[in-house]
């Protein structure tokens, strides 16, 4: 078991270095290789990080949904650890999406924030999964916390399309995303840079998931050992 943990750790380390390398390549490509947007100028370059992070944020909440269903089905704590880790990553990525979007919006829309359909539904999503993290830390019982988390992981994800419809109808007159309108035929450099950045974001997510679930595993193991010790009267007697 220790040997396999060691192998996992070295694989995680390799994955981490690969992620770092590809992220640096993506950064250099976004700054030097991709052409400057004719309409938006330099601000458009943030798109190479904003959009991949948005896609990865949705991916992580989808992983939460799958892990939640699997936990309720199998009752294996392994799935709960994945759900816990993925919620945290999803919230971090969503936060970064909101921040990079604001940085882009200031020069292009001349405002840090607008109640546009996309922005609003992303913010609502952020609140749902922040509530998940709060719920987990406010539920002392471990097994109950896992069940509650799974229920919220499913209930929250069901809400995504409904929230999307409601805010789209609510803000129909707002212009659509400028990036898509302004690029009827994106030059190949743009597409290439985007794909490398997308790869970097997905690798970053996978690497963080490995590290985070490993940490949760160690925590769960530690707690079980402590309980065992307490039962034998060794620790708290």
């Amino acid at each position, binding site marked *: 078991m220790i040997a396999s943990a060691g192998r996992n750790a070295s694989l995680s380390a390799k994955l981490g270095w690969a992620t770092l390398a590809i992220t640096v390549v993506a950064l250099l490509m976004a700054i030097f290789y991709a052409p400057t947007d004719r309409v938006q100028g330099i601000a458009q370059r943030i798109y190479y990080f904003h959009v991949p992070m948005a896609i990865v944020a949705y991916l992580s909440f989808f992983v939460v949904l799958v892990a939640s269903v699997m936990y*309720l089905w199998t009752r294996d704590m392994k799935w709960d650890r994945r759900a816990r880790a993925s919620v945290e990553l999803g919230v971090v990525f969503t936060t970064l999406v909101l921040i990079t979007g604001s940085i882009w919006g200031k020069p292009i829309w001349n405002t840090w924030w607008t109640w546009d359909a996309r922005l609003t539904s992303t913010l*609502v999503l952020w*609140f*749902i999964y922040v*509530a998940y993290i*709060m*719920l987990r830390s*406010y*539920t*002392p*019982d471990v097994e*109950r916390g896992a*069940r*509650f988390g*799974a*229920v*919220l992981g*499913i*209930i*929250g994800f*069901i*809400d995504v399309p*409904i*929230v999307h*419809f*409601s*805010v789209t*109808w*609510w803000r*129909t007159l707002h212009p659509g995303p400028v990036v898509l309108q302004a690029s009827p035929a994106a030059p190949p450099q743009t597409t290439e840079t985007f794909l490398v950045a997308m790869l970097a974001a997905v690798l970053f997510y996978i690497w963080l998931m490995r590290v985070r679930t490993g940490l949760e595993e160690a925590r769960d193991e530690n707690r079980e050992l402590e309980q065992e010790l307490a039962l034998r009267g060794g620790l708290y007697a």
Partner: protein
Amino acid sequence: MMGSFGRQIMAVLARDLLLEWRTKDALTAMLVFALLVLVTFDFALDLRPEIMSAVGPGVLWVAVVFASTIGLGRTFAVERDSGTLDGLLLAPLDRSALFLAKLAGNLIVMAIMEIVTLVAFAVLFNVPVDPAPVLLIALLGAIGIAAVGTLFSAVASHTRAREVMLPVLLFPVIVPVLIGGVQATGVALGNPVARDMPWLSLLAAFDAVYVAAGAIMFEYVLEE
């Protein structure tokens, strides 16, 4: 003829309504709170008649949602505090039936609160309200809020800081109800800014999804 599932729902619902009828705890708290929100909004926004068509629906819905949270939070907290939750869980009840009974009980109290709040809204702010469409919108909204709220109140009752946890869980999930309710009420009250979209379908879809999801998921919340 009513099956055993229907009898289970009726038994729990009758018990809850009898308890509420004798104490009127939830209804009183919700009504006073809803009226307080209306009055607070008047001080906060200086609600003169000419701005009521624009902000009136929002004021009405915030009062309804906030007051509902108070009633919903009591659903399982009271059962836990009085030790009757264990009895309910030991009783030969289908979990879905228990959920639907609690949902119906909350819904009935919320509907009464909504009717009184609507009358107070029309009188206090001198807004002409056509009761039929607005009550239909209010009821459709209440079903969605009660469905999500009943499920989450069972969750929140087992957490530390449960008074905080229920609104934090509930408000983001019911955003579509708030948007749909406010816009549909705006259309019904003749607000020129409100968008005429199929809001009632949105509310009905939300209700159907979350009543079903709650009935299915409830057993996972109440496992002991």
